[in-house]
Structure formats: C-alpha cells, structure tokens
C-alpha cells in the first residue's frame, strides 16, 4: 500500500507566540518547531498500515521552507521512506486552498492508495487543507478519524462528531484526517535517526510541479494579528473555610459576573 502523509511544520504547542512589528505575522525567532501534532498521528498510522499490509511506501509531503527539512527528517526517522518538500517564495503567503492546490498537484504525479493528513494544523487552526486536497483530487475523504480498518480496497472509519461517533465505509483511494485517540505516535529511535540521514528528500519549486505563482494567490489574507484580551481581575476569593470561600464565590458569580 502506498501512502502519502501531508505534513506541516509548526511552532511547538508550548510556544509563547508574539506578534511581529508588521502586525500581520508572528515572531519566528527563538521558536521551537515540530511536526504538527495531528500530522504525527498521520505518520504513525501510515507506518502501522504499511506494516499491517505487508509492504508499500510512506511518502511525506510538505509545503514549507528550508527549516521544514528538520520536520521531514524527524518523520523519516520515525520510519517514513521518503519525503517531498515544495519550497517557493510564492507559496509562503498562500491560503489553505492555495496550499491544497500545491499538494494536489504533486500527488497527481504519484501513485497512492491512501492519503493521511492532520485534522488541523495547530498554527492556523484552519481545518481546510485535508478535505480541500481530497476535493481537488476528486477522491472521498473522512475527517477526524479515531479508528480505521482497511479491507479489500475500502476503509472503515470511526470518526468523531459533536456528541458521539460515526462509523463510515469509503472506497480507496481516499484521504483521512486524524483525531486524537487514533494512536500514540512513536519516538524516532537512534538507528531510525541514522537511517533517516540517507533517505531522500526531493525539493521542488512551483515551476517544477507545473504551477504558476498566480495559481496560489490568496483569497484569504491576514490583515491583522491581535493578542486576545487579557483577563484583568484575577481575584482570589478569601475566606476562613472552604465553605466560606465557596459561598463568596457563588455570590460573586451570581450577583457580579451574573453567570449563575
């Protein structure tokens, strides 16, 4: 089974994010960069499927910058076979549909049975790219998958919906997006890290994949980034006993904040 994993490099979730002077981007210096946590689930699932199916390849595909090579190496060290990085100045301001168009253009040149993506990238939290890639390839997708089972050219997925789960069948080729609970991603082993150094990372420009810059011109533009309003009061409720504190808390929630 040949599987493609869509992988994005993002700032680690523990990062403090500060806004750059232009007010539209974030400060990227001093950030720790990692594989998007939901894409880690995708890499792990791909490796497990490959093993279960007794063969095939796991290819990582990313649109990024030179720095993204680190994330791809980590994915290769986990056990993926090869990686493709699309790197182009024109891709840097692309919106979700633009990124999807780039990814779909690359995937069209490859053979694959299954595509795995994260449900969302924890930087732009857009939830767009996975379903959009599937649409552009004219294949079905199932989002937020917590369990999958492949049999006879089809995959049975359990996906989360608000308040429950839904089990659906879909024929391959298909794209799935990951939800927490799907698996526990492995850590890269030392031998894995050594091996990854020799695995190929194919770097391409937009021209290489037959796209012009205009094809990824954004229709969604960030005009400003703002810090969310800080909570100001931060009032510690004093009292002689747990009961006294509880009574005072409920009083302020009821009378002042009016949320009870």
């Amino acid at each position, binding site marked *: 089974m040949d599987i493609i994993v869509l992988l994005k490099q993002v700032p680690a979730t523990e990062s403090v994010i500060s806004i750059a002077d232009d007010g539209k981007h974030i400060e990227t210096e001093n950030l720790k960069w990692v594989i998007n946590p939901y894409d880690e689930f995708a890499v792990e699932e791909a490796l497990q499927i490959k093993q279960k199916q007794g063969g095939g390849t796991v290819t990582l595909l990313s649109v990024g910058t030179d720095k993204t090579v680190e994330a791809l190496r980590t994915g290769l060290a986990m056990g993926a076979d090869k990686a493709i990085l699309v790197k182009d100045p024109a891709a840097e301001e692309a919106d979700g549909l633009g990124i999807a168009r780039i990814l779909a253009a690359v995937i069209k040149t490859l053979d694959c049975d299954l595509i795995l993506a994260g449900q969302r990238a924890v930087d732009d939290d857009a939830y767009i790219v996975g379903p959009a890639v*599937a*649409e552009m390839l004219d294949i079905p997708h199932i989002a937020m998958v917590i369990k999958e089972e492949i049999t006879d050219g089809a995959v049975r997925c359990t996906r989360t919906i608000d308040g429950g789960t839904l089990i659906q069948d*879909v024929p391959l080729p298909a794209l799935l997006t990951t939800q927490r609970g799907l698996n526990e991603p492995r850590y890269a082993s030392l031998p894995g890290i050594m091996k990854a150094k020799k695995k190929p990372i194919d770097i391409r420009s937009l021209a290489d994949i037959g796209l012009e810059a205009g094809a990824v011109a954004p229709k969604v533009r960030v005009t400003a980034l703002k810090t969310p309003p800080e909570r100001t009061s931060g009032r510690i409720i004093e009292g002689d006993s747990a009961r006294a504190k509880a009574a005072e808390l409920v009083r302020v929630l009821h009378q002042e904040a009016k949320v009870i």
Partner: protein
Amino acid sequence: MSNGVLVIAEQIDGVFRKVAFEAVSEGKRLAEQLGGELTAAVLGEGVDTIAGELARYGADTILTAQEPALKEFAVDAYTKVVADIVAQVDPSVVLVGATMTGKDLAARLAARLDAPLAMDCIGIRLDGDTLTATRPVYGGKVLAEVTLTGTLRIAAIRPNAFGLKESTGPGKIEVFAADPGDPKIRFVEKQMETGKIDLTEAEVIVSGGRGMGGSDYTILEDLADALNGAVGASRSAVDEGWRPHSDQVGQTGKTVSPGLYIACGISGAIQHLAGMSSAKVVVAINKDPEAPIFAKSDYGIVGDLFEVVPAVTQEVKKVKG
C-alpha cells in the same frame, strides 16, 4: 440575488444544534447590512417538521433538503447538495456552524466552489462589501483578522461565540429537490453519548485535571449538574485514562467558549489555556497558590478541590433554589 446570506442550519436526529440558531441570528444581521435576503437551509430526513424553528431568528426563506442519503452526515452527499443550494440561492455569504461536521463540510465546499473560507470565526464584520472575520489561531494565543476576497465568501462560526437574536421574518418554507449525486461514503453506524451536553455548546464547563487524582469525577459531575453544564478535562486526565478523549479541552483537544469555565486541579499549561481562553468567566480551584491558572482566571480559590468543589455545589443549589 448575490447580496443575500445563506445559512446551513445543522441538525442531528431532528434537533437543531444551538449554533444553527446562532448562525441564523448572525446571518440576519449580515443580510440586513448587505440589503439582501436571508435563506436558511436544513439537510436531513424528516426535517420539515423542525424547519419552522428557523423563522424565529429571522430567516426569510427556509429550504428543506430531504433525502435518505442525507439522514446522517456524509461529507460527499452534503457537499453536493449544499453546492447545489448555493447555485440556486446565489448568496454573497454562506454561514455554517463550526461543529466537527460543519467544519468538514465548509472545507470541502470551499474547495469545490473555489471560495474563500474563514474557519471557526468568533466575529464577522462587513465594511461595505468587504468581509473581515476574526478567528483564533495558534490555539487561541492570537486572534487573526482575515479578509475574504470574492463574490462568494464562506464563514464557519464557532459555537457559543455569537449570540442568539430573535427577529421576525416571513420564514417561508420551501422544498429543495436534493440530489445527493453518487456518494462514495456509506453509513455504517452512529453512536451518541446520550444525556450529555456537548462541551462546545455548554454554557458552563467544570473541568478536572491531574489534581483529581483518579477517575472518580463525581464531585465535578455534581457541580456540573447543579449548573446545567458539562464536564471537561485536561490532557493529563485524559492521558491517565480517567476521562475520554472527547472531554479534552486545549490546543489539541476542544476549544470551548462557555459563559463560565471552572478549572479544578488544573495547573494552567499554555496548551490548556489555549482551549478555554475565550470563556467569558474563568474560575480556578487549585491548592497551589502559585499555579499559573490563577493569572488567567477571573476568580480563584486556593484550596483542596475535594473540600471546595462540594461546598460550591451546595451554594449553587441554594442560589438556584
């Protein structure tokens, strides 16, 4: 029409999601500003019996798209039918509730229509015809304002972030002849956690973390019940196996916007704060006065949660009578 607004009003098992009414309320506001009509559409089976509820929030026209293939959510059939509705209504703005299924539909629809999409918005502004949406990014650590360029724009609105506003509209119900096309996704089974209020829609959330010390969440459930709310958890509590994944609040869990969020035995890690920073009022109960959660809370109680939480429940019951 092309200066109108189309709202896709989500229902499950014949009951509208609260965000469906929020979307219609917001849709009405936008339609008035654009000087266009508000159309609300509901997909499903047997939904004609509930469609009229959308009139209460000002829908001019209510379309019912009924088909066995639409009984349960399937992104391919839903996208096909919604795209057909868009083609008929020709709106300027499409609003969807940013539930898990709503986000899925919105993304695929945007790709099909090649239309700009702002996912999980907490605010929408129209300056003339320019639509700007505010949406949390980096798990809520930053708010982004994004402008959408095009004659058709899609926004998925975060549950609980927009208010409900009743207004009158003709609420004319019309049947939309739905053609789900040739869907590839086949329904097998659905399981709902019965009797639980979904975290994303809850007005009150009582969350427990590692400080709970085990899987017995009874005291939190009692408090949540007294407040008619839901119980959430930190990732540590989920990782310990004390609570299901679906209860996790945070950057890799659910982002929630309740009116009241009570964090019990939760330290306030940045990934947790990301998921609840848009709560209106935050209360922290923690035995460590230095816990970072206090700096991000409106009210705090320093104390043992096993003493404080039951006492709070007692007091709530008194107030609520």
